[in-house]
Protein backbone atom coordinates (compact mmCIF):
# COMPACT_ATOMS: atom_id res chain seq x y z
CA UNK A 1 0.00 0.00 0.00
CA UNK A 2 2.77 2.43 0.91
CA UNK A 3 6.20 2.00 -0.61
CA UNK A 4 9.05 4.11 0.67
CA UNK A 5 12.19 4.02 -1.44
CA UNK A 6 15.54 5.44 -0.37
CA UNK A 7 13.90 8.24 1.56
CA UNK A 8 16.23 10.95 2.87
CA UNK A 9 15.35 14.22 4.52
CA UNK A 10 17.69 16.99 5.63
CA UNK A 11 16.92 20.21 7.45
CA UNK A 12 19.83 22.37 6.34
CA UNK A 13 22.92 20.40 7.26
CA UNK A 14 21.09 18.11 9.67
CA UNK A 15 20.27 14.79 8.08
CA UNK A 16 17.15 13.52 9.84
CA UNK A 17 16.34 10.52 7.65
CA UNK A 18 19.04 8.49 5.95
CA UNK A 19 18.06 6.41 2.97
CA UNK A 20 15.07 4.66 4.50
CA UNK A 21 13.35 1.94 2.47
CA UNK A 22 10.20 0.37 3.82
CA UNK A 23 6.95 -1.22 2.75
CA UNK A 24 3.64 -1.00 4.57
CA UNK A 25 0.85 -3.42 3.67
CA UNK A 26 -2.88 -2.92 3.71
CA UNK A 27 -4.41 -3.66 7.11
CA UNK A 28 -1.13 -3.36 8.99
CA UNK A 29 -0.74 -1.37 12.17
CA UNK A 30 2.84 -0.21 12.11
CA UNK A 31 4.17 1.45 15.26
CA UNK A 32 7.30 3.57 15.13
CA UNK A 33 9.27 3.93 18.33
CA UNK A 34 12.55 5.58 19.11
CA UNK A 35 14.17 8.41 21.04
CA UNK A 36 13.26 12.00 20.23
CA UNK A 37 15.12 13.36 17.24
CA UNK A 38 15.36 9.89 15.74
CA UNK A 39 13.30 10.88 12.70
CA UNK A 40 10.06 9.01 13.43
CA UNK A 41 7.81 12.05 13.08
CA UNK A 42 9.69 13.22 10.01
CA UNK A 43 9.25 9.79 8.45
CA UNK A 44 5.52 9.93 9.13
CA UNK A 45 5.20 13.46 7.78
CA UNK A 46 7.03 12.49 4.61
CA UNK A 47 4.36 9.87 3.92
CA UNK A 48 1.74 12.55 3.17
CA UNK A 49 4.29 15.13 2.07
CA UNK A 50 3.84 17.53 4.96
CA UNK A 51 7.62 17.36 4.74
CA UNK A 52 9.14 17.28 1.29
CA UNK A 53 11.74 14.53 1.14
CA UNK A 54 15.18 15.66 0.07
CA UNK A 55 15.64 12.45 -1.85
CA UNK A 56 13.78 9.24 -2.54
CA UNK A 57 10.24 8.27 -3.39
CA UNK A 58 6.99 7.64 -1.59
CA UNK A 59 4.52 5.52 -3.54
CA UNK A 60 0.96 5.28 -2.24
CA UNK A 61 -1.50 2.90 -3.88
CA UNK A 62 0.68 2.81 -6.98
CA UNK A 63 0.98 6.61 -7.30
CA UNK A 64 4.33 8.30 -6.79
CA UNK A 65 3.27 11.12 -4.50
CA UNK A 66 6.74 12.64 -4.40
CA UNK A 67 6.37 13.41 -8.11
CA UNK A 68 5.69 17.20 -8.44
CA UNK A 69 3.07 16.42 -11.12
CA UNK A 70 0.95 14.38 -8.71
CA UNK A 71 -2.14 16.14 -7.32
CA UNK A 72 -1.12 15.93 -3.68
CA UNK A 73 -4.51 17.14 -2.44
CA UNK A 74 -6.23 14.14 -4.04
CA UNK A 75 -3.74 11.76 -2.42
CA UNK A 76 -4.01 13.38 1.01
CA UNK A 77 -7.77 12.86 0.94
CA UNK A 78 -7.03 9.15 1.28
CA UNK A 79 -4.48 9.60 4.08
CA UNK A 80 -5.89 10.74 7.40
CA UNK A 81 -3.54 12.36 9.87
CA UNK A 82 -3.79 12.95 13.60
CA UNK A 83 -1.41 15.38 15.28
CA UNK A 84 0.12 15.60 18.71
CA UNK A 85 -1.54 18.94 19.37
CA UNK A 86 -4.89 18.04 17.74
CA UNK A 87 -5.03 21.14 15.53
CA UNK A 88 -8.78 21.37 15.60
CA UNK A 89 -10.03 24.54 13.93
CA UNK A 90 -10.96 26.84 16.83
CA UNK A 91 -13.20 29.04 14.70
CA UNK A 92 -15.68 26.26 13.90
CA UNK A 93 -17.99 23.97 15.81
CA UNK A 94 -17.03 20.33 16.16
CA UNK A 95 -19.49 19.34 13.44
CA UNK A 96 -18.08 21.94 11.03
CA UNK A 97 -14.55 20.79 11.86
CA UNK A 98 -15.48 17.30 10.75
CA UNK A 99 -17.61 18.09 7.71
CA UNK A 100 -15.55 20.93 6.18
CA UNK A 101 -13.11 18.75 4.24
CA UNK A 102 -15.52 16.08 2.92
CA UNK A 103 -17.92 18.77 1.72
CA UNK A 104 -15.34 21.14 0.22
CA UNK A 105 -13.47 18.38 -1.61
CA UNK A 106 -16.75 17.19 -3.10
CA UNK A 107 -16.57 13.79 -1.43
CA UNK A 108 -20.00 14.13 0.16
CA UNK A 109 -22.98 16.43 0.25
CA UNK A 110 -23.52 18.50 3.39
CA UNK A 111 -26.27 16.15 4.59
CA UNK A 112 -24.22 13.02 3.94
CA UNK A 113 -21.20 14.48 5.72
CA UNK A 114 -23.24 15.53 8.75
CA UNK A 115 -24.88 12.14 9.00
CA UNK A 116 -21.50 10.42 8.75
CA UNK A 117 -20.00 12.83 11.28
CA UNK A 118 -22.75 12.19 13.81
CA UNK A 119 -22.39 8.44 13.35
CA UNK A 120 -18.62 8.65 13.94
CA UNK A 121 -19.12 10.96 16.92
CA UNK A 122 -21.50 8.43 18.43
CA UNK A 123 -18.87 5.74 18.00
CA UNK A 124 -16.33 7.73 20.04
CA UNK A 125 -19.00 8.74 22.57
CA UNK A 126 -19.07 12.46 21.76
CA UNK A 127 -22.35 12.89 19.87
CA UNK A 128 -23.47 15.54 22.37
CA UNK A 129 -20.47 17.74 21.46
CA UNK A 130 -21.42 18.29 17.82
CA UNK A 131 -22.27 21.95 18.36
CA UNK A 132 -19.52 22.77 20.85
CA UNK A 133 -16.41 24.73 19.99
CA UNK A 134 -12.97 23.13 20.47
CA UNK A 135 -12.16 25.54 23.33
CA UNK A 136 -14.94 23.91 25.34
CA UNK A 137 -13.44 20.40 25.13
CA UNK A 138 -10.83 18.52 27.15
CA UNK A 139 -7.62 17.30 25.49
CA UNK A 140 -8.85 13.74 25.21
CA UNK A 141 -12.11 14.88 23.67
CA UNK A 142 -10.25 17.11 21.21
CA UNK A 143 -8.05 14.25 20.09
CA UNK A 144 -11.01 11.92 19.60
CA UNK A 145 -12.68 14.63 17.53
CA UNK A 146 -9.47 15.00 15.52
CA UNK A 147 -9.53 11.27 14.81
CA UNK A 148 -13.17 11.51 13.74
CA UNK A 149 -12.32 14.46 11.52
CA UNK A 150 -9.71 12.41 9.71
CA UNK A 151 -11.97 9.34 9.53
CA UNK A 152 -14.83 11.29 7.99
CA UNK A 153 -12.77 11.53 4.78
CA UNK A 154 -12.94 7.72 4.64
CA UNK A 155 -9.17 7.41 4.29
CA UNK A 156 -7.33 4.24 3.30
CA UNK A 157 -4.58 4.84 5.84
CA UNK A 158 -4.38 6.73 9.13
CA UNK A 159 -1.18 8.41 10.28
CA UNK A 160 -0.83 9.17 13.99
CA UNK A 161 1.91 11.55 15.12
CA UNK A 162 2.31 11.06 18.88
CA UNK A 163 -1.44 11.31 19.43
CA UNK A 164 -1.29 10.95 23.21
CA UNK A 165 1.88 12.89 24.04
CA UNK A 166 0.12 16.16 24.79
CA UNK A 167 -2.61 14.62 26.93
CA UNK A 168 -3.13 14.43 30.66
CA UNK A 169 -2.32 10.87 31.75
CA UNK A 170 -5.92 10.08 32.61
CA UNK A 171 -7.05 10.99 29.10
CA UNK A 172 -4.58 8.80 27.26
CA UNK A 173 -6.77 5.72 27.69
CA UNK A 174 -9.82 7.11 25.94
CA UNK A 175 -7.79 8.04 22.86
CA UNK A 176 -5.92 4.74 22.75
CA UNK A 177 -9.25 2.89 23.01
CA UNK A 178 -10.48 4.62 19.87
CA UNK A 179 -7.25 3.69 18.08
CA UNK A 180 -7.48 0.07 19.20
CA UNK A 181 -11.05 -0.09 17.94
CA UNK A 182 -9.85 1.29 14.63
CA UNK A 183 -7.03 -1.23 14.33
CA UNK A 184 -9.44 -4.05 15.10
CA UNK A 185 -11.64 -2.93 12.21
CA UNK A 186 -8.68 -3.46 9.90
CA UNK A 187 -7.70 0.17 9.25
CA UNK A 188 -4.18 0.54 7.95
CA UNK A 189 -2.34 2.59 10.55
CA UNK A 190 1.10 4.10 11.00
CA UNK A 191 1.59 5.30 14.55
CA UNK A 192 4.42 7.23 16.12
CA UNK A 193 4.10 6.84 19.87
CA UNK A 194 5.79 6.49 23.20
CA UNK A 195 2.99 4.25 24.48
CA UNK A 196 4.84 0.94 24.60
CA UNK A 197 1.76 -0.81 25.99
CA UNK A 198 -0.18 0.19 22.91
CA UNK A 199 2.63 -0.91 20.62
CA UNK A 200 2.85 -4.30 22.30
CA UNK A 201 -0.89 -4.91 22.29
CA UNK A 202 -2.06 -3.51 18.96
CA UNK A 203 0.89 -3.30 16.54
CA UNK A 204 1.25 -5.86 13.83
CA UNK A 205 4.79 -4.61 13.35
CA UNK A 206 7.09 -2.38 15.38
CA UNK A 207 9.99 -0.38 13.97
CA UNK A 208 12.75 1.13 16.05
CA UNK A 209 14.31 4.26 14.59
CA UNK A 210 17.45 5.95 15.75
CA UNK A 211 19.66 8.50 14.01
CA UNK A 212 17.47 8.54 10.90
CA UNK A 213 17.61 4.81 10.15
CA UNK A 214 15.40 1.85 11.03
CA UNK A 215 17.66 -0.09 13.35
CA UNK A 216 15.34 -2.96 14.04
CA UNK A 217 11.88 -4.10 13.04
CA UNK A 218 9.70 -7.06 13.83
CA UNK A 219 6.62 -8.23 15.66
CA UNK A 220 5.99 -6.65 19.08
CA UNK A 221 7.05 -9.98 20.53
CA UNK A 222 10.44 -9.84 18.80
CA UNK A 223 11.04 -6.18 19.59
CA UNK A 224 10.00 -6.13 23.22
CA UNK A 225 11.03 -9.56 24.51
CA UNK A 226 13.95 -10.47 22.25
CA UNK A 227 15.55 -7.19 21.14
CA UNK A 228 18.74 -7.86 19.21
CA UNK A 229 20.13 -4.36 18.77
CA UNK A 230 22.14 -2.92 21.64
CA UNK A 231 20.71 0.58 21.12
CA UNK A 232 17.15 -0.78 21.23
CA UNK A 233 17.87 -2.67 24.41
CA UNK A 234 19.11 0.40 26.22
CA UNK A 235 16.15 2.43 24.87
CA UNK A 236 13.66 -0.14 26.13
CA UNK A 237 15.43 -0.34 29.48
CA UNK A 238 14.80 3.38 29.89
CA UNK A 239 11.19 3.55 28.77
CA UNK A 240 9.72 0.30 30.11
Amino acid at each position, binding site marked *: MIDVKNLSKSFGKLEVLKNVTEHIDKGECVVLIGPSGSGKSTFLRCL*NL*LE*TPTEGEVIFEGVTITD*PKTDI*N*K*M*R*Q*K*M*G*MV*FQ*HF*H*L*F*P*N*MTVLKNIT*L*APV*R*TGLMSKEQAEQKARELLRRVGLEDKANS*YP*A*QLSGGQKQRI*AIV*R*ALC*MEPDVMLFDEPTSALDPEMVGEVLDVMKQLAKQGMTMVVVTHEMGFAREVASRVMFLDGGVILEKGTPEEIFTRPKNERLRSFLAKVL
Partner: protein
Amino acid sequence: MEQYTAWKAMIIAGEPASTWQKFYVYFYQAFLENDRWQQYLNGVVTTLYVTALALLLGIVLGIIVAVVRTAHDQQLPGRHNPFLGVLNAILKIYVTVIRGTPMMVQLLIMGFVVFASSRNYVMVGALTLGINSGAYTAEIIRGGLMAVDQGQMEAGRSLGLNYADTMRFIIVPQAIKAILPALGNEFIVLLKDTSLISVIGGKELLYAARGVVSRTYEAMYPFLGAAFIYLVLVMLFTWLLGIFERRLRASDRR
Protein backbone atom coordinates in the same frame (compact mmCIF):
# COMPACT_ATOMS: atom_id res chain seq x y z
CA MET B 1 -28.51 87.46 16.12
CA GLU B 2 -29.09 90.97 17.39
CA GLN B 3 -27.33 90.11 20.60
CA TYR B 4 -24.40 88.80 18.53
CA THR B 5 -24.15 92.01 16.52
CA ALA B 6 -24.32 94.13 19.67
CA TRP B 7 -21.79 92.13 21.67
CA LYS B 8 -19.45 91.87 18.71
CA ALA B 9 -19.46 95.62 18.32
CA MET B 10 -18.63 95.90 22.03
CA ILE B 11 -15.65 93.56 21.69
CA ILE B 12 -14.37 95.27 18.55
CA ALA B 13 -14.64 98.67 20.28
CA GLY B 14 -12.47 97.33 23.10
CA GLU B 15 -15.16 97.60 25.77
CA PRO B 16 -14.90 95.10 28.64
CA ALA B 17 -16.90 91.94 27.87
CA SER B 18 -17.74 88.99 30.12
CA THR B 19 -16.39 85.48 29.40
CA TRP B 20 -19.87 84.40 28.43
CA GLN B 21 -20.22 87.27 25.99
CA LYS B 22 -16.87 86.48 24.36
CA PHE B 23 -17.73 82.79 24.14
CA TYR B 24 -21.09 83.56 22.64
CA VAL B 25 -19.67 85.89 20.01
CA TYR B 26 -16.80 83.70 18.90
CA PHE B 27 -18.87 80.53 18.95
CA TYR B 28 -21.64 82.17 16.98
CA GLN B 29 -19.12 83.56 14.54
CA ALA B 30 -17.32 80.25 14.06
CA PHE B 31 -20.30 77.95 13.68
CA LEU B 32 -23.61 79.77 13.27
CA GLU B 33 -23.05 82.99 11.35
CA ASN B 34 -23.98 82.60 7.65
CA ASP B 35 -24.93 78.99 8.47
CA ARG B 36 -21.25 78.01 8.68
CA TRP B 37 -22.14 74.74 10.40
CA GLN B 38 -23.16 73.52 6.99
CA GLN B 39 -19.57 73.82 5.81
CA TYR B 40 -18.40 71.68 8.72
CA LEU B 41 -21.15 69.18 8.04
CA ASN B 42 -20.21 68.97 4.37
CA GLY B 43 -16.61 68.55 5.52
CA VAL B 44 -17.54 65.68 7.81
CA VAL B 45 -19.45 63.97 4.99
CA THR B 46 -16.42 64.29 2.71
CA THR B 47 -14.11 63.09 5.47
CA LEU B 48 -16.23 59.97 6.01
CA TYR B 49 -16.56 59.42 2.28
CA VAL B 50 -12.81 59.63 1.73
CA THR B 51 -12.18 57.38 4.74
CA ALA B 52 -14.61 54.76 3.45
CA LEU B 53 -13.14 54.78 -0.06
CA ALA B 54 -9.56 54.71 1.18
CA LEU B 55 -10.34 51.99 3.70
CA LEU B 56 -11.97 49.82 1.05
CA LEU B 57 -9.09 50.30 -1.37
CA GLY B 58 -6.57 49.78 1.44
CA ILE B 59 -8.13 46.52 2.55
CA VAL B 60 -8.43 45.16 -0.99
CA LEU B 61 -4.81 46.08 -1.74
CA GLY B 62 -3.73 44.82 1.66
CA ILE B 63 -5.36 41.42 1.21
CA ILE B 64 -3.89 41.00 -2.27
CA VAL B 65 -0.39 41.94 -1.16
CA ALA B 66 -0.55 39.88 2.03
CA VAL B 67 -1.92 36.75 0.37
CA VAL B 68 0.55 36.88 -2.53
CA ARG B 69 3.49 37.46 -0.23
CA THR B 70 2.43 34.74 2.21
CA ALA B 71 1.72 32.27 -0.61
CA HIS B 72 5.12 33.05 -2.08
CA ASP B 73 6.87 32.45 1.23
CA GLN B 74 5.01 29.21 1.89
CA GLN B 75 5.81 27.47 -1.37
CA LEU B 76 7.30 24.02 -1.06
CA PRO B 77 10.98 23.90 -1.88
CA GLY B 78 11.42 22.84 -5.49
CA ARG B 79 7.89 23.90 -6.46
CA HIS B 80 8.41 27.63 -6.97
CA ASN B 81 6.01 29.46 -9.24
CA PRO B 82 7.94 32.04 -11.35
CA PHE B 83 4.84 34.23 -11.85
CA LEU B 84 4.37 34.44 -8.10
CA GLY B 85 8.04 35.37 -7.75
CA VAL B 86 7.72 38.38 -10.09
CA LEU B 87 4.48 39.51 -8.46
CA ASN B 88 6.04 39.20 -5.03
CA ALA B 89 9.00 41.37 -6.07
CA ILE B 90 6.69 44.10 -7.44
CA LEU B 91 4.55 44.13 -4.31
CA LYS B 92 7.62 44.29 -2.11
CA ILE B 93 8.74 47.43 -3.96
CA TYR B 94 5.26 48.91 -3.51
CA VAL B 95 5.34 48.34 0.24
CA THR B 96 8.89 49.69 0.53
CA VAL B 97 8.20 52.90 -1.43
CA ILE B 98 4.91 53.69 0.28
CA ARG B 99 6.19 53.03 3.77
CA GLY B 100 9.44 54.82 3.04
CA THR B 101 7.97 58.19 2.05
CA PRO B 102 5.78 60.61 4.04
CA MET B 103 2.05 60.63 3.47
CA MET B 104 2.11 64.38 2.83
CA VAL B 105 4.75 64.02 0.11
CA GLN B 106 2.75 61.27 -1.56
CA LEU B 107 -0.32 63.52 -1.54
CA LEU B 108 1.55 66.44 -3.06
CA ILE B 109 3.06 64.22 -5.77
CA MET B 110 -0.29 62.63 -6.60
CA GLY B 111 -2.13 65.97 -6.49
CA PHE B 112 0.33 68.20 -8.33
CA VAL B 113 2.37 65.81 -10.49
CA VAL B 114 0.54 62.61 -11.35
CA PHE B 115 -2.97 64.02 -11.42
CA ALA B 116 -2.00 67.67 -11.93
CA SER B 117 -4.80 68.28 -14.41
CA SER B 118 -7.52 66.69 -12.29
CA ARG B 119 -10.00 68.89 -10.45
CA ASN B 120 -11.46 66.00 -8.48
CA TYR B 121 -9.29 66.57 -5.42
CA VAL B 122 -11.40 64.37 -3.20
CA MET B 123 -10.98 61.31 -5.42
CA VAL B 124 -7.25 61.93 -5.85
CA GLY B 125 -7.00 62.20 -2.06
CA ALA B 126 -8.98 59.02 -1.47
CA LEU B 127 -6.88 57.15 -4.03
CA THR B 128 -3.61 58.30 -2.45
CA LEU B 129 -4.77 57.48 1.06
CA GLY B 130 -6.02 54.07 -0.08
CA ILE B 131 -2.73 53.21 -1.74
CA ASN B 132 -0.90 54.38 1.35
CA SER B 133 -3.14 52.48 3.72
CA GLY B 134 -2.83 49.33 1.59
CA ALA B 135 0.88 49.03 2.30
CA TYR B 136 0.35 49.19 6.06
CA THR B 137 -2.76 47.00 6.01
CA ALA B 138 -0.82 44.40 3.98
CA GLU B 139 1.77 44.08 6.72
CA ILE B 140 -0.93 43.89 9.40
CA ILE B 141 -2.74 41.14 7.51
CA ARG B 142 0.50 39.30 6.74
CA GLY B 143 1.38 39.41 10.41
CA GLY B 144 -2.05 37.99 11.24
CA LEU B 145 -1.72 35.19 8.71
CA MET B 146 1.71 34.24 10.02
CA ALA B 147 0.53 34.36 13.62
CA VAL B 148 -1.95 31.53 13.04
CA ASP B 149 -0.39 28.29 14.24
CA GLN B 150 1.39 26.47 11.41
CA GLY B 151 -0.41 23.33 12.57
CA GLN B 152 -3.71 24.77 11.35
CA MET B 153 -2.39 24.89 7.81
CA GLU B 154 -0.98 21.37 8.16
CA ALA B 155 -4.26 20.05 9.54
CA GLY B 156 -6.21 21.62 6.68
CA ARG B 157 -3.84 20.35 4.02
CA SER B 158 -3.59 16.88 5.56
CA LEU B 159 -7.35 16.56 5.09
CA GLY B 160 -6.88 17.12 1.37
CA LEU B 161 -8.10 20.71 1.28
CA ASN B 162 -6.18 22.85 -1.21
CA TYR B 163 -4.18 25.93 -0.24
CA ALA B 164 -6.92 28.42 -1.17
CA ASP B 165 -9.65 26.61 0.77
CA THR B 166 -7.44 26.19 3.82
CA MET B 167 -6.68 29.90 3.73
CA ARG B 168 -10.30 30.89 3.22
CA PHE B 169 -12.01 28.71 5.81
CA ILE B 170 -9.32 28.13 8.41
CA ILE B 171 -6.44 30.62 8.37
CA VAL B 172 -8.08 33.91 7.33
CA PRO B 173 -11.00 33.78 9.81
CA GLN B 174 -8.56 33.21 12.65
CA ALA B 175 -6.20 35.89 11.36
CA ILE B 176 -9.00 38.48 11.13
CA LYS B 177 -9.84 38.00 14.77
CA ALA B 178 -6.21 38.45 15.73
CA ILE B 179 -5.60 41.58 13.66
CA LEU B 180 -8.83 43.42 14.39
CA PRO B 181 -7.31 45.72 17.05
CA ALA B 182 -4.42 46.62 14.72
CA LEU B 183 -6.81 47.08 11.82
CA GLY B 184 -8.99 49.33 13.97
CA ASN B 185 -5.91 51.37 14.74
CA GLU B 186 -5.09 51.68 11.05
CA PHE B 187 -8.68 52.74 10.42
CA ILE B 188 -8.44 55.51 13.02
CA VAL B 189 -5.13 56.73 11.61
CA LEU B 190 -6.72 56.79 8.17
CA LEU B 191 -9.72 58.76 9.38
CA LYS B 192 -7.46 61.41 10.85
CA ASP B 193 -5.09 61.40 7.88
CA THR B 194 -7.93 62.49 5.64
CA SER B 195 -7.28 65.94 7.10
CA LEU B 196 -4.11 66.01 4.97
CA ILE B 197 -6.01 66.10 1.71
CA SER B 198 -6.85 69.74 2.41
CA VAL B 199 -3.32 70.51 1.11
CA ILE B 200 -4.35 69.45 -2.38
CA GLY B 201 -7.72 71.15 -2.12
CA GLY B 202 -9.91 68.33 -0.87
CA LYS B 203 -12.85 69.98 0.86
CA GLU B 204 -12.99 67.88 4.01
CA LEU B 205 -13.54 68.88 7.64
CA LEU B 206 -10.22 70.66 8.25
CA TYR B 207 -10.57 72.51 4.95
CA ALA B 208 -13.91 73.86 6.16
CA ALA B 209 -12.39 74.95 9.48
CA ARG B 210 -9.52 76.69 7.71
CA GLY B 211 -11.99 78.44 5.46
CA VAL B 212 -13.81 79.85 8.45
CA VAL B 213 -10.54 80.92 10.09
CA SER B 214 -9.46 82.84 7.00
CA ARG B 215 -12.79 84.61 6.84
CA THR B 216 -13.13 85.52 10.55
CA TYR B 217 -9.47 85.86 11.56
CA GLU B 218 -10.29 83.76 14.61
CA ALA B 219 -8.51 80.42 14.85
CA MET B 220 -9.48 78.97 18.20
CA TYR B 221 -13.10 77.97 17.83
CA PRO B 222 -13.00 76.55 14.29
CA PHE B 223 -9.92 74.43 15.01
CA LEU B 224 -11.10 73.29 18.44
CA GLY B 225 -14.42 72.49 16.85
CA ALA B 226 -12.77 70.42 14.14
CA ALA B 227 -10.66 68.60 16.74
CA PHE B 228 -13.78 67.86 18.76
CA ILE B 229 -15.59 66.46 15.72
CA TYR B 230 -12.62 64.19 14.83
CA LEU B 231 -12.54 62.98 18.42
CA VAL B 232 -16.25 62.16 18.41
CA LEU B 233 -15.93 60.30 15.11
CA VAL B 234 -13.00 58.24 16.37
CA MET B 235 -14.78 57.42 19.62
CA LEU B 236 -17.84 56.35 17.69
CA PHE B 237 -15.84 53.97 15.51
CA THR B 238 -13.88 52.60 18.45
CA TRP B 239 -17.17 51.71 20.06
CA LEU B 240 -18.48 50.03 16.92
CA LEU B 241 -15.25 48.04 16.53
CA GLY B 242 -15.55 46.86 20.12
CA ILE B 243 -18.99 45.44 19.40
CA PHE B 244 -17.70 43.72 16.27
CA GLU B 245 -14.76 42.23 18.15
CA ARG B 246 -16.97 40.81 20.88
CA ARG B 247 -19.10 39.14 18.26
CA LEU B 248 -16.06 37.51 16.64
CA ARG B 249 -14.94 36.12 19.96
CA ALA B 250 -18.04 33.91 20.23
CA SER B 251 -16.02 30.73 19.60
CA ASP B 252 -13.65 31.45 22.52
CA ARG B 253 -16.37 31.18 25.10
CA ARG B 254 -16.09 28.23 27.40
